């Protein structure tokens, strides 16, 4: 008892890109205090700079921005920008983290982000957010949606390249936010754990002069090209080339710049470049159909979920030309500024093509300057490339207890992996600090809500000048006068800044003095400011949903600044419409749903065990159900890792921990018979050998794994010399070097019944398994010959090192085309015929034929999907809520997924995905209750015809059909589950009978607004 009292229920997160942001949100929801520390002036990281994301082509900022706003709004998260780490003391559970904060010269509490300062600032500097393709002022905001939503002054450069302290911004800032004399700040945070999410850096191709970067103006990096594509980028989303601002037609992408490249010390693959290149080519083509994209590549590493299909679409639907060739040089035509690329095609023929623009698909490196300062400060061990080393089998755990790692500083990777690791690291911190969960979060108490139902509307309207942003264009006095004449409006006030602290006091006072019962704020966007005003209403004893906002800034003064008279007219109408809605506002009372704090994990493979252990170690009772008679799942067919670690020993150890954990109840040889209920309150019937048992729980983690495909082709099953990779692995594990002294020949064929019509996806792990087993053969018997016939070697990240090692140790890799699959004939030897693009047809006499056959979901996957009402993708794997940002969530609240049932993956990936699912589950379990969304849908039973259309369109499965007895007759109507409804409004639109309405957006409210203008 006394021991844990020393622990601190707070976590520091270093780096506020998408990884840090996700970890912060998870931990804050789990009941921990979070310090989110960021080096730059704004959170969001690289993802904020991207245009779209693959494979869904979602707008990157559109999916990121809500998470950033959530961070800013969360009561348990403190954001500290322009902050760097200077030291750390203490140990796991209780660290003192020393930080140094450079001055922003702008008071965060006072800055309203109106932008007047930047307008007047005379100093223009290169904009690092656009990689110098555009300029910004010395006082600036990194990007429009930046959080914190405030400006910053650049005083870092020398004389001409920084703020000149002319004082103009100080004069123009009406809220007095400029503080030129701000001093740097050193302080210490007491935290129980630290998560490092500092991220890696884009490779700077200046060290590869042959590509002409910075020498030739029309050679740009892929991240610069993202900015060119972006609507908020240097060319407002027009694709222009830097030299002459003309639209390029022929664009080339060069893969592997700074990756898979020993000459710059980056022997690894950067994992995401193949996919972002395809995305950039597709999006470019979508911008201008005339663009002819060419991609020069070595392998197309489309190993992720739904990636292969994306590449196929890029090739077939968008006419992206793929050329397999390593480019050695780019030359510029000094007159036209066009670029020449000479390349050798697969058949060894030389070609030369001209391009208008060349994009270098740059990879990631750990730091611009080695050694990595932060890694050194924290005492973390790093690998030869400067990335953080993690513990075997547990990727987010570092050598320092209590410090966890997530994101691209661990290994170059895509967004879903980073986000998953973020949640996994949060789970680790949650396990460490479980006894002090909830000790450092504060709960504010508000006065009792006044009942307003019986009163006539008494509306108070607060009109904002927003400095000169609104007041400089609109005639505020005229707006005050016109608003005063509106029915039910009893109080109108104009404020310089409505969001300032003193206006909040004025709002509270006015509510009391004038007995106001509804408030309208005519100012900026509710997206950032609504919670602030809602808080003021609560402090004055009003229900927070008696607030309405209308945006007379973005939607009026900013867009009509040249026509102030008309703009004022429009603002009058906007306010009148909003008053009409305000009259109709009713209090909304959210519902508190009790949560059963127990978890169910389905599947006892490594992902399921990892999830169960993580949940149990966080203090939640967990039931683990496994259909087999033993734990381990597919890992029981895996014997060693490529590093030579014993997988079976690991599985044994983990299984033992699961079986002996006091909070885990294990059901072997059991399956789910039926699932009833919803988030927080599930009743699951488990079918065991001893009968059916009922288990009540609050969340579900699905981790049902995969199985190896047993092929129908290549005489598999008919000849013992033909076997799958797993079968080979089993044999190899039983041998030692004395067993294989013969000169044997092994031929491995990759992508058997994979990435074709039978299984149109890449199974991610087979290439590496082939490399691993090839290396094993070579180490057992250096005289043995191993041939690997592959299509694209998917040895992404640091796995590339082992691919290189295999080639160096004499394993022969022959690339084949999917149109020319290897052929075999059986005899004394197995004759393998393969068509090499360079050598032509090659015959290899083999002793063993090893088939990499891909992985597939087990047959009972569909049944479980139906029981849990969660979807599968077209390949039969479970479909998560969002590929990028919600990789372990289902859209149905309370159900999560982990491991290979999501898509095939490696052991370590399954481990951290299991932990991530546990973290996400813990955000629901931690507080023991859930609050429903305010703007949920409700069904009017008297109007509902029971047609069930709403049930079928609801993306969250939040509506059920219920039967009711009305006057002795059976009536079926829809019923919205308050815990599951997310307030998206889809059902409201689908219902023809208007039997469903949404709180805060009902027909009366919307129609009353429309009636004001027609």
């Amino acid at each position, binding site marked *: 008892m006394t021991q844990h009292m020393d622990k601190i229920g707070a976590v520091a997160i270093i780096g506020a890109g998408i990884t840090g942001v996700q970890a912060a949100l998870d931990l804050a929801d789990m009941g921990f205090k979070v310090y989110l520390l960021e080096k730059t002036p704004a959170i969001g990281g690289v993802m904020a700079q991207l245009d779209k994301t693959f494979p869904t082509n979602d707008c990157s900022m559109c999916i990121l921005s809500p998470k950033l706003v959530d961070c800013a709004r969360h009561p348990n998260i403190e954001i500290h920008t322009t902050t760097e780490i200077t030291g750390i003391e203490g140990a796991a559970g209780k660290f003192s983290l020393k930080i140094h904060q450079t001055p922003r010269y702008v008071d965060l509490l006072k800055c309203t982000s109106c932008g007047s300062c930047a307008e007047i600032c005379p100093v223009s500097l290169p904009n690092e957010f656009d990689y110098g393709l555009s300029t910004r002022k010395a006082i600036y905001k990194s990007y429009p949606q930046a959080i914190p939503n405030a400006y910053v002054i650049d005083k870092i450069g020398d004389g001409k390249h920084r703020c000149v302290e002319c004082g103009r911004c100080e004069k123009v800032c009406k809220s007095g936010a400029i503080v030129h004399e701000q001093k740097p700040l050193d302080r210490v945070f007491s935290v129980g754990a630290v998560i490092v999410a500092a991220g890696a850096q884009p490779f700077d191709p200046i060290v590869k002069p042959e590509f002409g970067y910075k020498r030739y103006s029309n050679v740009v990096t892929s991240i610069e090209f993202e900015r060119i594509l972006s609507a908020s980028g240097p060319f407002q989303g027009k694709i222009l080339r830097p030299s002459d601002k003309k639209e390029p037609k022929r664009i080339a992408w060069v893969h592997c710049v700074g990756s898979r490249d020993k000459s710059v010390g980056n022997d690894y693959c950067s994992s995401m470049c193949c996919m972002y290149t395809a995305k950039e080519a597709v999006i470019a083509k*979508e911008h201008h159909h005339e663009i002819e994209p060419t991609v020069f590549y070595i392998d197309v590493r489309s190993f992720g979920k739904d990636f292969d299909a994306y590449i196929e679409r890029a090739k077939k639907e968008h006419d992206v030309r793929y050329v397999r060739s390593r480019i050695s040089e780019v030359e510029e035509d000094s007159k036209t500024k066009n670029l020449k690329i000479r390349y050798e095609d697969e058949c060894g023929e030389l070609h030369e093509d001209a391009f208008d623009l060349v994009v270098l698909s740059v990879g990631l490196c750990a730091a611009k300057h080695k050694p990595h300062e932060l890694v050194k400060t924290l005492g973390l061990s790093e690998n030869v490339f400067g990335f953080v080393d993690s513990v075997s089998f547990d990727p987010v755990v570092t050598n320092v207890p209590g410090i966890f790692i997530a994101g691209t500083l661990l290994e170059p990777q895509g967004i879903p992996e980073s986000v998953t690791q973020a949640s996994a690291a949060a789970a680790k911190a949650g396990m460490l600090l479980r006894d002090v969960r909830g000790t450092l979060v504060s709960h504010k108490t508000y006065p009792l809500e006044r009942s307003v139902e019986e009163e006539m509307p008494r509306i108070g309207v607060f009109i904002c000048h927003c400095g000169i942003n609104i007041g400089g264009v609109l005639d505020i006095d005229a707006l005050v006068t016109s608003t005063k004449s509106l029915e039910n409006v009893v109080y109108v006030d104009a404020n310089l800044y409505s969001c300032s602290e003193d206006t909040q006091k004025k709002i509270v006072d006015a509510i009391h003095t004038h007995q106001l019962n509804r408030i309208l704020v005519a100012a900026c966007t509710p997206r950032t400011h609504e919670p602030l005003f809602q808080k003021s209403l609560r402090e004055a004893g009003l229900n927070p949903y008696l607030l309405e906002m209308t945006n007379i800034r973005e939607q009026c003064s900013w867009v009509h600044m040249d026509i102030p008279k008309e703009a004022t007219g429009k603002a009058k109408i906007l306010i009148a419409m909003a008053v009409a809605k305000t009259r109709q506002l009713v209090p909304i009372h959210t519902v508190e749903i009790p949560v059963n704090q127990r978890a169910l994990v389905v599947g006892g493979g490594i992902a399921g065990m990892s999830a169960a252990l993580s949940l149990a170690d966080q203090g939640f009772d967990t039931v683990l159900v496994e259909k087999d008679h033993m734990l381990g799942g597919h890992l029981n067919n895996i014997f060693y890792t490529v590093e030579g670690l014993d997988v079976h020993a690991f599985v044994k150890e983990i299984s033992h921990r699961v079986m002996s954990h006091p909070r885990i109840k294990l059901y072997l040889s059991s399956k789910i018979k039926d699932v009833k209920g919803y988030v927080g309150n599930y009743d699951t019937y488990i079918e065991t050998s001893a009968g059916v048992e009922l288990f009540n729980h609050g969340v579900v983690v699905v981790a049902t794994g995969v199985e190896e495909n047993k092929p129908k082709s290549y005489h598999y099953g008919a000849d013992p010399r033909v076997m799958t990779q797993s079968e080979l692995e089993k044999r190899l594990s039983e041998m030692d070097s004395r067993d294989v002294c013969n000169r044997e020949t092994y031929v491995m064929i990759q992508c058997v019944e994979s990435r074709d019509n039978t299984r149109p996806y890449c199974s991610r792990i087979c290439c590496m398994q082939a490399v691993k087993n090839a290396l094993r053969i070579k180490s057992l018997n250096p005289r043995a010959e191993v041939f690997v016939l592959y299509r694209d070697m998917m040895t992404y990240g640091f796995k590339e090192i082992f691919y290189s090692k295999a080639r160096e140790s004499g394993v022969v890799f022959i690339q084949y085309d999917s149109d020319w699959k290897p052929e075999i004939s059986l005899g004394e030897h197995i004759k393998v015929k393969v068509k090499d693009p360079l050598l032509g047809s090659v015959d290899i006499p083999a002793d063993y034929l090893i088939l990499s056959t891909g992985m597939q979901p087990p047959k009972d996957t569909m049944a479980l999907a139906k029981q849990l009402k969660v979807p599968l993708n077209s390949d039969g794997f479970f479909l998560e809520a969002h590929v990028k940002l919600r990789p372990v969530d289902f859209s149905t609240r309370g159900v999560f997924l982990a491991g290979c049932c999501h898509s095939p993956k490696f052991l370590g990936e399954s481990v951290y995905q299991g932990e991530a699912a546990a973290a996400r589950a813990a955000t629901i379990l931690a507080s023991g209750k859930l609050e429903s969304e305010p703007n949920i849908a409700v069904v009017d039973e008297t109007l*509902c015809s029971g047609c*069930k*259309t709403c049930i079928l*369109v609801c993306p969250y499965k939040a509506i059920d059909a219920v039967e009711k007895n009305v006057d002795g007759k059976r009536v079926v109507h829809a019923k919205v589950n308050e815990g599951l409804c997310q307030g998206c409004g889809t059902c409201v639109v689908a219902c*023809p*009978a208007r039997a469903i309405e949404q709180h805060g957006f009902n027909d009366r409210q919307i129609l009353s607004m429309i*009636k004001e203008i027609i």
Partner: protein
Amino acid sequence: MMHHMILNVKDGDVSGSVNEMLKHLLSSAGIEALLVPQAVPSKKTVFPVLISDPKKLHADVFAPVLPVSTAAMVSRMTKVQPSSQPFGVVMHPCQIRALFELAKLNQVKLDNVVIIGVDCLGTFSVNTYASFPEKQNPTLFLLESFVKKTNDSEKYLRTACSVCTDMVPSNADIVIGLYGMDVEHEILIEAHTEKGKKLLEHLQLETGKDVNHRETAVKTVHEHQLKKYQMFIKEKSGLKGIALFAEFFDTCVNCHNCKTACPICYCRECLYESAVFDAEAYKFLRKAQTKGLLKMPQDTLLFHLGRMNHMILSCVKCGLCEQACPNNILLMDMFIPAAERTQKEFSYHPGKDVAEKIPMIVYREDEYKEVGEK
């Protein structure tokens, strides 16, 4: 699953022979009741009548009139609780399609419902039927015109029927077929489902007779109708824009009869009959001031837009709305081209297959990219 039999027509009495067969079904096939078109005492029209006593069965299944939707009647019978006892319904093809649409929307339960479809020769309006100008009874006139191939009946057909391309029921358990048959002597009785086949076993009808000429006849009449339909679409497709829309409905008295007559419209309370459009006098005055005038009632156009929005994808083109209009607004001129275009847009075939999902609940990632975010 096609199983056909021949019903021999006695003394050239087509309707009577079918009635006898239905009697047989009702008395000996384990069917509790039959919902059939049967003349009202004044003989001015026929209505769906639910008959349990074979002696009271005087069905006029070929009567060329459809005063109310048969599908809506089945909905009324089964919506509260599906029937536990089997009953049969004699239906026009358009009503079977409507029935399937209602089933998709859970407004009808098809358990224990035996659908008996009739080949449709078209129907006249209620008024035309009631005061039929020819000397003959309308059913006899229609059948004679069919037998003699005179096209005499065509001028009396409702617009919906004159351009209908689905005169042969495709979704019935049992089909009573006329096309391609020598109907003065023989009528086709065909089972399309196992359920239909079992019932027909109770009738000792002639089997095994070759009816190959039916297929050709059905094809010919379909092609003929399709031409008429396409011409109609071409002719009526010009109606675009709100001004023309307003002109089209300018005689509408906002009585909502079209809505009441529609077989599919199923809301318990229509939005346009609720208090949503009630407003203070000043709002009416302000609206008048905006344009200088305001035609009353003010929500007529919105009603028609709303009705079209709700119904157009499920529209089975039965034309009952047009028949119900007291001011003879030619609703089919608008609804048929609109239904054609919207249904084609979603590749949707209302009433064709009960398993086909209504477009509202189908999400296709690849559609309407041109209106999405660029």
